[in-house]
């Protein structure tokens, strides 16, 4: 009886501190994307750091919501990978290159409009430096095009549970099977 009560208390105590579990994760290695320490805001207005994704594989891409052409294709490719990778606990992260315009509210509306499941999709807004540093790490080249948009490369990057880059696809010729091959069940 006492043992059962003690066990129940221990479990409830542990579950009441989900952040503690995250803090227990080892610091990122010298090559982990999670070495970047910037703070971001997701589409629900929650503050987070990239290392908060530790423990799951992450597929990350950069674009912006008013992007007329390539970003919908990026999302379509990510969605195809999502479908092919069902049951593999993959997180999808879309980072805006246009943080002044793509507020969290706008990102939320964009996610809703594209039917992105909030259980597995995170859309991120950060300051200019955070965006510039992440783009530099991922090799995403971009510049304002003078017409309110951006010219940018379309790169899908798969990160492992520690934030190490496992695979990059620098074009739109995406075969979801190539990504799934890096995600054994």
């Amino acid at each position, binding site marked *: 009886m006492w043992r059962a009560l003690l066990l129940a208390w221990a479990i409830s105590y542990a579950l009441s501190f989900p952040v503690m579990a995250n803090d227990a994760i080892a610091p990122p290695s*010298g090559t982990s994307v999670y070495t970047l320490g910037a703070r971001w805001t997701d589409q629900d207005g929650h503050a987070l750091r990239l290392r908060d994704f530790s423990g799951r594989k992450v597929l990350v891409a950069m674009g912006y919501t008013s992007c007329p052409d390539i970003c919908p294709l990026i999302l379509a490719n990510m969605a195809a990978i999502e479908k092919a990778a069902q049951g593999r606990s993959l997180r999808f992260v879309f980072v805006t290159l246009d943080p002044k315009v793509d507020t969290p509210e706008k990102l939320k509306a964009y996610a809703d409009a594209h039917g992105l499941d909030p259980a597995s999709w995170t859309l991120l807004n950060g300051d200019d430096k955070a965006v510039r540093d992440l783009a530099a790490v991922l090799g995403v*080249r971009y510049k304002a095009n003078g017409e309110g948009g951006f*010219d940018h*490369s379309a*790169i899908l990057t798969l990160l492992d549970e520690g934030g190490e880059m496992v695979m990059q696809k620098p074009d739109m010729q995406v075969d979801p099977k190539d990504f799934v091959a890096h995600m054994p069940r």
Partner: protein
Amino acid sequence: MARRMAIMAASSLLALMPACAEPMAPVPAGAYTPFFKFIPAKGQRATEPRPVGIKAFRLDRFPVTNAQFAAFLEKAPDWRRGAAPRLFVDPNYLRRWRDGAPPKGEDNAPVTNVSWFAAQAFCESLGARLPTTDEWEYALADAGRGQAQVTRASLDWFAKPNGARIGDVGGAPNGYGVSDMIGLVWEWTQDFSATGSGTEQRNTSSKDDAAFCGGGAAGVRDPADYPAFMRYALRASLKASYVQDNLGFRCAGDE
């Protein structure tokens, strides 16, 4: 000991610098026409380049020197060779330095073998930033003064064999009071990666074709400006963690 000497060298460097009260020169606002026109997607024609407005800014009169970088490392040990994360620097970072000190006799030469991240960290430690590519090119253009001299100096520099010791900073200033933009080292810019971003790219493996291959000459302000092709081609070839024996930087600030 070697690091202490580097710090002393940094202090003495200030005394050696040409007599300028401020390390940064004020660069007035103006209009600047980028070298590249809008880079077209395959099968499209380039549109005419549009002048962009440049706000007044400040720019280091000289490239950052080895002694200045050594002084930075004293305050920021996380950026020493061996300590800086591999995500931010490639294995050749500060490869010619020993025990935290630059090669003997090169305190007053531009620091090289520094990544974009390290350069950015240096500038941020001073409350500054890297110049944008437009700002850097605008300062080099010098309102049209001495353009022929810049081209000649560039070609002379390109003709020098690799491996020669990089000279000390302290060259003659241009009309804005900025020196050594040409002739010693290539320089990082904040948005170096904008070169080669092309239009929205479906195939980034061929991103630079329109800028640097046969079509390149049709897409630029002045097809005869070979040094400008070289500068933009170099930027397009870089990644943020890369370092090179002849790649340094200088900092900028807002007015």
